């Protein structure tokens, strides 16, 4: 095994245990891991942006391929930084105007088409199609979606008082929303457990002889460190 992989295993196991130590309580190990994560993430982003954006997409095309017009977006990008200088901060508005104008122009038609028109089309599927059984799951699903959309929309319709039929529909809409939130929460729990499984999976790997029992040794050391930290915090009698 390469030394970098071995050392990487120890670092990964150690930092995982540092972060898990928060489950006991906030402590210096957790804070160290947290700050390290923020620092490394920022460092990595800066380096990648430098190579992938500044060098690959700007410096090389301008100097080697003569694509001088790329200097214009670069200047617009620099103008954003004018916000930090109060006297010329108004210059940043030029860049923001371009960003907002271009962003809206690109996004609005596509979002309307994909997220509204096609979704409305999906809601209004024909209940009966040639060759289909008249009372199957397809029809049930289509009706369920239709009922869900209409009742939820009625729930969010605040221009009239929720009384009578409107109240009943709005109440049904709330149930649809609750089912949606429940499904979303269930999926979130599943996602978080998957992350835990991923870390445990790695800890098991790093606990092997190949990695010189990194996880086990580091678990003992972190536990010992927490005990010492707790004892150090206790006020002396």
């Amino acid at each position: 095994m390469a030394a970098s992989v071995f050392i990487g295993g120890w670092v990964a196991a150690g930092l995982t245990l540092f972060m898990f130590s928060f489950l006991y309580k906030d402590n210096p190990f957790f804070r160290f891991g947290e700050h390290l994560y923020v620092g490394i993430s920022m460092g990595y982003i800066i380096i990648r942006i430098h190579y992938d954006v500044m060098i690959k997409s700007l410096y090389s095309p301008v100097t080697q391929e003569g694509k001088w017009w790329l200097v214009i977006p670069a200047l617009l990008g620099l103008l954003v930084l004018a916000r930090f200088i109060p006297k010329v901060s108004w210059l940043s508005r030029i860049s923001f105007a371009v960003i907002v104008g271009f962003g809206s122009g690109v996004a609005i038609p596509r979002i309307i088409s994909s997220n509204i028109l096609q979704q409305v089309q999906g809601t209004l599927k024909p209940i009966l199609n040639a060759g289909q059984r008249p009372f199957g799951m397809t029809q049930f699903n289509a009706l369920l979606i239709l009922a869900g959309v209409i009742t939820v929309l009625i729930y969010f319709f605040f221009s009239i008082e929720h009384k009578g039929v409107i109240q009943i529909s709005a109440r049904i809409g709330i149930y649809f929303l609750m089912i949606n939130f429940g499904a979303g929460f269930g999926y979130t729990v599943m996602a978080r457990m998957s992350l835990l499984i991923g870390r445990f999976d790695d800890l098991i790997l790093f606990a092997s002889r190949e990695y010189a029992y990194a996880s086990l040794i580091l678990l003992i050391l972190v536990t010992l460190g927490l005990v010492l930290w707790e004892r150090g915090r206790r006020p002396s009698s």
Partner: protein
Amino acid sequence: MRELAGKLLRLDRRAIFVLIALATLLPLLHPFGLPIRVSPEVKAVHDHIESLPAGSLFLLSLDFDPASKPELYPMAVALLKHAFKRDLRVIGMTLWVTGTGMAEKVVSGVAKEYGKRRGTDYAFLGYSPGGANVIINMGQDLTATFPTDYYGERTADLQALRGVRSLRQVNYVVSLAAGTPGVESWYVYGKEKYGFELGGGVTAVIAPGLYPFLNTGQINGLIGGLRGAAEYETLIGMKGKGVAGMDAQSATHFVIILLILLCNLFYFISPRTAVPRGSPEEVGR
């Protein structure tokens, strides 16, 4: 009984952490092999790749960072293995700057396993800034968006990209996404305009939000979370990280359901002090 229920409700929350840790760890150490049923949305992605003739272009956009690795990395491995097994030309890329190194590692790692040559059988384009705008640019001119690949080779010279001018020539795109830009960006800015087929692989957190798009056919299939990865691995007959994690996933879910039921039961049978109506305590409840 009422007293015991009250005591259990006041139990230190760290006891729950230990229970969850055990429910996760034990099945990982001693798997009991619960059956995995394949859902139609995962099968749709598999079947589409299966239907592509050898040499077709398959673009895998790894739009995630290491924070979502446990869920999306197994999916990436399974999809790449399937694509390389089917002799598809694979294009790997990412819209997430923080995922670049990891994306390169998985694409080149699986390619090496199948004896595929970089630049000839597959290409890894790396990261380009702009999020959704990258997709629009790729739809106009792919080689202009990525003049060089991740390794600095000119994309116009790559054998793996022969005959590819834009996204219109790509047969199938799958975005493995942990957020935005991701699957949504690919169908909003890519699929509709450039006409390629699109599948999605996402973290479980964002999967429910994509089902409406599956229903309308805007995406042809959806692999959701670690469970989706396990289903895909089952379909291609591979025992990867997804399948290995399923027992632990089921065990933790069982413990959570049990705890929710027990806590509710204890809540109703435990002695409760009367709270005056309208008091801050009542509002808090």
